[in-house]
């Protein structure tokens, strides 16, 4: 069990944090100097442009004016940007950083809030441990919030991470130890602005308590993994809870099924649930409802391939009917031929009176 930091240790850690925050002030001074230089250069350009425009005006030269105007406008934009930067740098410098005493008080308060603080001298990190977290019946264990002192003032880096001490990660992703923590990085959501302000002003205890407040809440609208899916996904048909590699997603109804309740269409090879599969009455292959079609002649449902190949049973019946009808025709033709050949002779009319 970790012992609370002694006052001497708290002072040492406070000193480290104070030094790191002070380095921000030095960086702000450099930034201010750079912005001043840019603003001064812009002012020089504008003075030069003003001199040239006056010459043009005195001598009636309108040719160079458009180019000079473009230059004036461009310089004006750059100057405006530099002046905004000056204002920001000045504000940052004017902001009073916390004193060593204040940071020490922050650490002491954090130790009171969390029971104890820990300082890793090698990593130059302070850390606090939360109570075990349980969200909607899902136990996630306690988390250790690490404050990375060297990164406190690095705008490119989030200076804290959240490590699960008794990990119960999501079944589908071992890196997700909390719905809002992935790879030890918290997505602070609604707390982002407040944490940023607290970091800027050295309110270390507020950083720890704000991170803890995020860990103690669940936002179902935006988790890395939803708590409903924490232990794996449930088959929509039979309710079996399956590990991620057994999940079958039906392309047609868009739901998850286990391997027992899913199959695949032998026409398009897509995975579908058994509910979205039919059996073609002709080829007897499992076929998804998308690949099934209706015979335009008889209205029978069959797969598209069987219809294309004219394998619908109604077409076979039709052919069979055609075959049955063919002998009757032959007999009729033969009869007609015989009738034609047996035509009686017609006697002349005179012979009949004789």
């Amino acid at each position: 069990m970790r012992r609370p930091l002694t006052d001497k240790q708290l002072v040492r850690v406070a000193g480290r944090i104070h030094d790191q925050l002070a380095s921000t002030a030095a960086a702000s001074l450099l930034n201010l100097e750079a912005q001043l230089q840019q603003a001064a250069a812009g002012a020089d350009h504008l003075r030069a442009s003003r001199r040239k425009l006056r010459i043009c005006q005195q001598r009636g030269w309108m040719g160079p004016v458009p180019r000079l105007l473009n230059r004036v406008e461009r310089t004006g934009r750059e100057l405006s940007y530099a002046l905004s930067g000056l204002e920001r740098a000045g504000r940052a410098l004017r902001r009073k950083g916390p004193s060593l005493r204040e940071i020490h008080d922050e650490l002491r308060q954090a130790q009171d809030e969390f029971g104890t603080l820990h300082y890793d001298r090698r990593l130059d990190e302070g850390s606090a441990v939360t109570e075990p977290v349980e969200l909607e019946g899902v136990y996630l264990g306690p988390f250790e919030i690490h404050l990375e002192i060297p990164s406190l003032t690095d705008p490119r880096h989030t200076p804290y991470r959240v490590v699960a001490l008794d990990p119960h990660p999501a079944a589908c992703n071992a890196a997700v130890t909390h719905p809002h923590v992935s790879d030890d990085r918290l997505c602070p959501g609604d707390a982002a602005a407040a944490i940023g302000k607290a970091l800027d002003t050295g309110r270390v205890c507020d950083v720890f308590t704000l991170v803890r407040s995020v860990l103690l809440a669940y936002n179902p609208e935006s988790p890395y993994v939803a708590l409903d899916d924490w232990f794996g996904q449930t088959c929509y048909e039979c309710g079996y809870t399956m590990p991620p590699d057994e999940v079958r997603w039906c392309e047609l109804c868009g739901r998850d099924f286990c391997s027992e309740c899913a199959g695949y269409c032998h026409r398009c090879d897509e995975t579908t649930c058994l509910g979205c599969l039919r059996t073609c009455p002709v080829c007897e292959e499992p076929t998804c409802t998308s690949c099934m079609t209706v015979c335009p002649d008889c209205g029978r449902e069959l797969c598209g391939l069987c219809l294309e190949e004219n394998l619908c049973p109604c077409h076979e019946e039709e052919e069979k009917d055609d075959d049955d009808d063919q002998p009757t025709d032959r007999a009729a033709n033969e009869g007609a031929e015989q009738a034609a050949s047996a035509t009686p002779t017609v006697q002349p009319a005179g012979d009949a009176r004789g």
Partner: protein
Amino acid sequence: MQILFIDNDGGGFADYVEVADGTTVEQFFAKQMAGRAPEAYLIRVNRQPVSRDQVLQEGDRVTVTPTKIEGAA
């Protein structure tokens, strides 16, 4: 009288505010955090947990932090 108010709800507001003499912590919270339930917040005065009827003094530092804040992915 002036007290330093640090509101860690939302954007994080930290500034001095004017408060009437004799204002209790409960009254201060009801005014600054109108409509919010005190039970949903960690309220600290000068870094210490206090009772709701504690009367604020000139220069006090009051911090209000939600106990639960929604994260994201």
